[in-house]
């Protein structure tokens, strides 16, 4: 009996796979999202100071000012561009440059005579992600240039204390590591939710689900079939993306266990696909579903900790976000992939995802028959 049921669920799931296969646009979008898009985002959308644009106003035109202008190096900065003083406002207003360094006249002379001249660094503070950190890099760079110009490097040795800062897990603080994996997580969230939920609504709109319900099939069987089949598609895509794009093309060294990451993805997909089905039982039509999903997704994505740190949010919001499986999965993937954490560390996250998944599953099950009777 049980075996028969499992067989039935397997068969119903295989049917889901055929459904996806029959929509070429959908297949194309899936592939595109997990390959090209991940690559582009990881390579280009940086949250750390990389390729920051700097302009220099050189009113001194001295050896030292030239040295300073040439000292902004890759990978942190793009080569500095010399602009005229009257363009400061324009370039900052249009966002053409984020940093403008203003070196005053007689700067070199003043430095040599020990008069402590003032260099002004103008920062476009609307570029929150790099304004603060970039400004402190720039001031370090200028300080170092001036010092080495004065041949004062021995001053550093004279410091009474030697501060050694090391970043573990990602020594160069390279954010493409971070962005790549977070983009995979975001893709999993969006695609799993839409794929599963929309598949249910389409079956409802085409009357096929009703037909299933007069056969010896339980609502739970239909749901589990949708969950495993759509989950499988996403997990395969995510695994390939991790191995081929993230490890292969992007050369991100993955510290932790990939098996554990994929294992965690199973838990996560269970909760997300259940959520997708639940949302589909709430929505009466495809347009409603689309709108509902995008609203939920934006919140789950932006506030999961994959974009800005969770600790920066107000306490009440942090607590609320604990109900979102994405929050747990983001911290799970960071722990596993970057910090090489094992099950002994991440089990609470796994448990949370499973618990949330069960809650969504039960809610969906409770609504399932009702929704089909009501909306079809």
């Amino acid at each position, binding site marked *: 009996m049980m075996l028969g049921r499992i067989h039935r669920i397997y068969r119903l799931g295989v049917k889901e796979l*055929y459904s996806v296969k029959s*929509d070429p*646009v959908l297949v194309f979008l899936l592939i595109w*999202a997990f390959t090209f898009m991940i690559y*582009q*985002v990881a*390579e*280009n959308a*940086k949250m*750390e100071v990389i390729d920051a644009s700097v302009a220099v106003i050189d009113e001194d035109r001295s050896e030292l000012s030239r040295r300073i202008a040439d000292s902004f190096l890759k990978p942190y900065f793009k080569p500095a561009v010399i602009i005229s003083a009257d363009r400061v406002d324009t370039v900052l*207003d249009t*966002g053409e440059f984020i940093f403008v360094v203003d070196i005053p006249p007689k700067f070199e002379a003043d*430095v040599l005579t020990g008069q402590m*001249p*003032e260099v002004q*660094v*103008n*920062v476009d503070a609307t*570029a929150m*992600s*790099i304004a*603060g950190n970039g400004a*402190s890099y720039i*001031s370090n760079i200028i*300080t170092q240039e*001036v*010092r080495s110009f004065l041949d004062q490097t021995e001053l550093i040795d004279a410091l*009474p*204390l*030697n*501060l*050694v*800062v*090391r970043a573990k897990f*990602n020594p160069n*603080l*390279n*954010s493409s590591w971070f962005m790549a994996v977070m983009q995979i997580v975001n893709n999993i969230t969006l*695609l799993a939710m*839409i794929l599963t939920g929309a598949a249910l609504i*389409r079956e409802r*709109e085409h*009357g096929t689900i009703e*037909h299933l319900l*007069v*056969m*010896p099939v*339980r609502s739970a069987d239909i749901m589990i079939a949708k969950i495993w089949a759509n989950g499988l598609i996403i997990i395969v895509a995510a695994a390939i993306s991790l191995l081929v794009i993230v490890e292969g093309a992007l050369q991100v060294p993955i510290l932790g266990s990939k098996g554990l990451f994929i294992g965690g993805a199973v838990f996560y997909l269970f909760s997300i696909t259940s959520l997708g089905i639940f949302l589909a039982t709430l929505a009466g039509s*495809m347009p409603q*579903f689309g*709108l509902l999903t*995008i*609203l939920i*997704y934006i919140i789950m994505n932006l506030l999961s900790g994959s974009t*800005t*740190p969770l*600790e*920066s*949010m107000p306490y009440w919001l942090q607590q609320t976000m604990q109900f979102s499986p994405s929050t747990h999965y983001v911290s799970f993937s960071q722990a596993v992939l970057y*910090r090489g954490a094992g099950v002994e560390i991440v089990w609470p996250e796994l448990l949370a995802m499973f618990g949330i998944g069960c809650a969504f599953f039960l809610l969906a099950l409770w609504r399932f028959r009702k929704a089909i009777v009501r909306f079809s």
Partner: protein
Amino acid sequence: MKELIDHVAVVTSVNHKYGDRAALDDVSLEIPSGCMAGLIGPDGVGKSTLLALVAGVRKVQKGMVETLGGDMQKWSHRRDCLTRIAYMPQGLGKNLYPTLSIQENLEFFGRLFGLNRRQRRQRIADLLAATGLSSFAGRPAGKLSGGMKQKLGLCCALIHEPDLLILDEPTTGVDPLSRRQFWELIGRMRKRRPQMSVIVATAYMEEADQFDWLAALDDGQIIATGSPFELKLQTGAETLEQAFINLLPDCKKQERTEVIVPPRKSDDGEIAIAAIGLTKCYGDFVAVDHVSFEIERGEIFGFLGSNGCGKTTTMKMLTGLQPATEGESKLFGKTLNARDMQTRRRVGYMSQSFSLYEELSVYQNLELHAHIFQIPNRQIRDRLQSLLERFELDEVRDSKPTSLPIGVRQRLQLAVALLHRPEILILDEPTSGVDPIARDGFWRHLIELSRKDGVTIFISTHFMNEAERCDRISLMHAGKVLAVGTPSDLIREKEAASLDDAFVSFLEQDIAAIEEPEAVRDIVKEAAPKSSTTKERIFELRRMLAYTIRETKELLRDPIRLIFAIIGPIILMITFGYGISFDVEDLPYAVLDQDQTLESRKLLENFSGSRYFTEHDPISNAKELEFRLRSGELKFAIEIPPGFGQNLLAGRSPEVGILLDGAMPFRAETARGYVQGVISQYLNALSLQRRGVPLQISPAVIETRFLYNQAFKSTYAITPGVIMLLCILIPSMMTAVGIVREKEMGSITNFYATPVTQVEFLLGKQLPYVLLAYINFISLFLLIMFLFDVPMKGSFFALAVGALLYVWTTTGFGMLVSAFVKSQIAAIFATSIVAMVLTMNFSGFLTPVSTLGGGARFMGLFFPAPYFQQISVGTITKALDFPDLWSNHVSLALFALVFFFVAALLVRKQEK
């Protein structure tokens, strides 16, 4: 006026293919004007295709189609004559809008044909009176019975007083009374406008018998033309049905023998199905009103009644699909329990619409159901093979159901329903839309099942000849069973000539009892003959408004969507305003102090006193340090080596180690900056204390000015970006399903068949969403001004204009996606992925555009979001005005235009 002389449409050597399948094969036909012309023939022979070609709804592939004296392949002629043609597609109310009332549906069609308010009012009143729909004018089309839907469809078709009326199976699935009324109505309309030509495709031969002229089709070819009388004479047949069969090639004729129902052996009289006072209410509306009947094992029980009278709901209650509000149903004496899997195995059900998987082949569908019913693997092949043979599906076993004619699909559905050898079959209108020959074949199967296998069959139908084959029938109307009995008993009871008449008289009696029928006015008013073709304008405001008004009304009727669309962005803005923050505070850290001297404690005091850090319990060894960083509990750890104090005092520059968690680079960078700041403060203090002077680190002063956002608060920088984000995601999602949904639902036909142009269609559909998105913009703007206290520094006017252009663009983006994709799922998928990824990453929301490289910069440039980001951030935080930003406004306007015109190119005015 040449075309008025003899032929309303001339078709010359037309070929039409769907994929590999030829629907029309070198067809030439001249359809006379000023009369009722009919197309008859089985399903899938090309009747609908031919009508669609004549109506100009479908693109001509090969050959020539001339309608109303002009070539339909000529764009200008087609455009000009669309106002003179009315086209009613197959399917009940397929081109109507279910949430709109009768009146509103008519208003929509009136506007599409450019009628002004006075004309609309007069014609709608006329048509409603003529069809008897006046008293239901406010009822939504979705809640009408099938007959009423078709009457409304006819009104919509006639509102512009066409010269050519094209009806594709208008009475399929409509009860006899409504069917009669429908043809009477057409008759009256023709009397009123005698010059109007009518072309009808029908499956009812008795209807076709009344037409002036007929063309019989088979296998994509014309097999005969002429008046019904001529056809009968030519073939020597008595009835038209027989005449048609005689016309068929010999090989097909042989299949045809009279369906004979052998008498049922009187069984033990066991009751297979019993309905006891079944009632179903939807709110106030009673769909099924205390329905009771009993069906014996092996009996064929027919269920007759108009559409929407409660037949389907009753059947669904008997299968357990719908819970009954009151009453109970029993199968084999056992009260039905929807959760009981055993009962489900004994029942086979076939729903009214096709409900098998279109993405699976015929064989795969059968196989799936075999597995669902857990038929042992070794039996599956044989059983499926015998079903394929029995229902003549072997030839199409690998085809997808969508490519098959309705008749074949219904056979497949029946095969699926029989797969598990059920004892009860519940069939909801299994033969609607199936041609007479296929129907007879279908019935032979049913009779065999009943008489040979003792299967109880409960079937609903509109065909009287089918009803006559049933052992007993019940007549249902408005939720009530009017009569139950054998067909002959019922005819006798009403002293009627036929079952059809008996049915009509039962209905009339019942209608007379409950609702006084409105006296249908016969308006035989001579309408002025329309002048010949007038030139149609490319853009007509009224036609565009037709779509705008309709779309707005549909939106207002869908409060869930409306509320989500208005409240959703507000909630998101509040959440993000607080939630998205780059302000790193309270970083958790811990100390591994291997020195434990006064000096080390002094250094650490600087950390514990800072508001940026939160100290956790100290670490005792290197292993613990590793573990706690790994677990994510700590964002950094401070390691002080043994002998730190001594070395410091001795000036030996001891090392202090900081270990950062680099998993989130942004946080790590910020933490590093903070740590360096704390250490240099400490060093300064140390130097002051020792040498009396602050530590001189730099020979120059570096003054950093944070412009636009001196407080360096994330809110100021983030919220303008959130406006940008939400004003693309929500509006594009709203419009993304717009066009593709019309394609899936079938109402796109109205766009094909009426003179509305692409520009009017797209613009009309877009307008309400532009307005809605602008409401979003205003509410978001007010929110950041008053809730988040973000000061507005620049020009509000520049922002307001920019926002208008932006929402125009973003709604246009949704329309573009919608015009491009084939399914609603793909539309939602594409919109969310493209909009989300591009906006979040490449539009300057979180990462500045100027730092983007390569492909990302390129992608950003070809997307509207970064331009509005400039305007939004520029006006709100950077104090900018038009002179600084105009190029962004221009770019947005260009995007709006490009999206619009690409969408217009993708939306075709004809079906392929």
